[in-house]
């Protein structure tokens, strides 16, 4: 099945990078290959993974969402203000935060569709607005001391063989599974891929372009809101400067995961692996102790370059088979 091999090549390469990377780490550091390291990898990158899933959907549809980091920051502040200053119970606060974040994303999607503006610039404005709103609520880092936070943080799923999955890790895994179903077993998923493949053709084939655009940015906002909840659990505080640069990390994870930034090709699972690769590099550097943190960025930049080249090469190969006419 060379066809399937070719189709999944980016995914296979990404997974191979993760596996080889893990093996290298395991041979270098004797106590690396442990369930504790795996559990930490999942927990530490949970908010990133959840956000990256939303970003994958947006990019698959041919767009981009630069506001996700700001939405995470805003969500943590909103939660802190509602729970600590407003005396709310966390559960209704979670609901309000999710609705606000999802609505914010959907509104951006609406602007993108109605005014035919580039997603890049609309979500850039969205990033400013979300950060600004966070600052308006409070510029301080507000600790959240509600007892439920402690309980949630203690929640974990323990397996007999030694793996202990925290709530954030479980949430991320759940989101990834749900996203795979959404991408491949619903009409919405097919419409997303269609939109990213060719907007005009998709429209001709009956894809509801406007509704899909609003929905995908709404979904991205919603997931960023969920990531914000996870982030506030993880840090136990709300801070408007939280999660700066997360939009960049998620886009990088999406690309390393084999999704075409031009839309239409890619897999949610790839993004998940991309997030883990980024986490692995960080963990390696922590374990090493002598390597400096900036190597993370350089390594990720190199990976980004290699994967973009790989995608470019694959597109050329596909086009060479008589797919799309080569543009001058």
């Amino acid at each position, binding site marked *: 099945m060379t066809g399937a091999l070719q189709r999944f090549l980016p995914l296979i390469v990404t997974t191979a990078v993760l596996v080889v990377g893990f093996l290298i780490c395991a041979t270098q550091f004797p106590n690396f290959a442990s369930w504790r390291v795996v559990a930490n990898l999942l927990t530490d990158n949970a908010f990133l993974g959840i956000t990256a899933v939303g970003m994958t959907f947006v990019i698959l549809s041919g767009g981009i969402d630069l506001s996700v980091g700001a939405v995470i920051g805003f969500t943590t502040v909103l939660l802190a203000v509602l729970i600590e200053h407003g005396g709310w119970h966390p559960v209704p606060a979670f609901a309000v935060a999710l609705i606000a974040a999802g609505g914010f994303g959907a509104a951006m999607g609406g602007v993108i569709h109605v005014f035919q503006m580039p997603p890049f*610039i609309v979500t850039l404005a969205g990033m400013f607005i979300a950060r600004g709103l966070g600052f308006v609520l409070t510029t301080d880092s507000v600790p959240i001391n509600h007892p439920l936070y402690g309980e949630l943080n203690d929640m974990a799923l323990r397996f007999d063989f030694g793996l202990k999955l925290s709530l954030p890790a479980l949430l991320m895994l759940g989101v990834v599974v749900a996203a795979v179903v959404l991408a491949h077993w619903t009409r919405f998923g097919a419409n997303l891929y269609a939109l990213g493949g060719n907007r005009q053709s998709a*429209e001709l084939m009956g894809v509801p372009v406007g509704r899909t655009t609003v929905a995908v940015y709404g979904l991205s906002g919603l997931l960023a809101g969920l990531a914000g909840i996870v982030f506030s659990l993880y840090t136990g505080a709300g801070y408007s400067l939280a999660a700066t640069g997360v939009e960049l990390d998620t886009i990088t994870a999406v690309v390393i995961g084999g999704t075409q930034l031009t839309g239409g090709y890619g897999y949610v699972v790839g993004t998940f692996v991309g997030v883990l690769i980024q986490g692995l590099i960080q963990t390696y550097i922590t374990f090493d102790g002598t390597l400096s943190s*900036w190597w993370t960025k350089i390594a990720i930049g190199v990976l980004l370059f290699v994967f*973009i080249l790989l995608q470019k090469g694959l597109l050329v190969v596909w086009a060479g088979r008589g797919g799309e006419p080569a543009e*001058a």
Partner: protein
Amino acid sequence: MTLSAPGPARNLPQYGALFAVLLANWLLFPDFFAIRLQDGRLFGSLIDVLNRGAPVALLAIGMTMVIATRGVDLSVGAVMAISGAIAATMTGAGWSLPAVLAASLAAGLLCGLWNGLLVAVLRIQPIIATLILMVAGRGIAQLVTEGQIVTFTSPALAFIGSGSFLTVPMPVVLTIVVLAVTALLVRATALGLMIEAVGINRLSSAGAGVNTPVVLVAVYVWCGLCAAVAGLIVTADIRGADANNAGLWLELDAILAVVVGGTSLLGGRFGLVLSVVGALIIQSMNTGILLSGFKPEFNLIVKAGVLLVVLLLQSPTLTLFLPRPKGARPIGTVKPPVAPTSGGAKP
């Protein structure tokens, strides 16, 4: 030969906006226009606006030409960090000022060359191509400074950030010089015309014999150089290099300045002076918000508001008057003016 391509009437909104913002500042803060001379250097809120606006203005100059070719450069903030890191580290190691400046500028040039080759030769979308350096560049800057905040004491380099020339602060002088050199480079040669031609219609330009790859590489190289100068100014001003935070998010401010300055994100006609005016509008608002006692955090919301208003003003114009070949407009809304030919437009 004008520096800003569109006619004077089209510049009015930008100058009007700058005037309005300055007026508002003056109303809120009557001393706004007060300028005093102290130790041979001008001081005052207005001077402050110019001085603090200099880095973004410099980035905006380079970014303007990149955007005019229908591209964007997300890496300018990271390039600033690299150039600043090199300058501070080399100065600390005792290198002479000319060597330091040459090395910093060369770094900016190399970064621009990298971006330009990715865009022009490998034909990677600009957003994606420059994303690579945006991610890795900061790592490279930290590699140079070895993760430290490198400080230096050399008065020669510090002069670039805090010195003055004929009473005018050096950052302002440098911005004016770069603006003048850039304007000369693009308007006294045919480069400006070619940049605009490539941005408006790459196919037609190539068909007329324009060397489109060279034009594309040139604008990214120049953008890298501008970013390097901006990085030098920031480093010289704080007498140190903070690879983590130098130029952080300034690429977005630069894009905003260009958009406010009226250059379309879809490429084409550009105005260098107007982009600098855009940068000054943004800086004046920052200063005004500070002076009026609001939290500086309001800046972001105001910026977003300005961005949206400018885009909304541009949006109907763009969709009505400038039909684009790749326009994602709904089918059937714009009919061809003549009977469609079966050979021409395919659905």
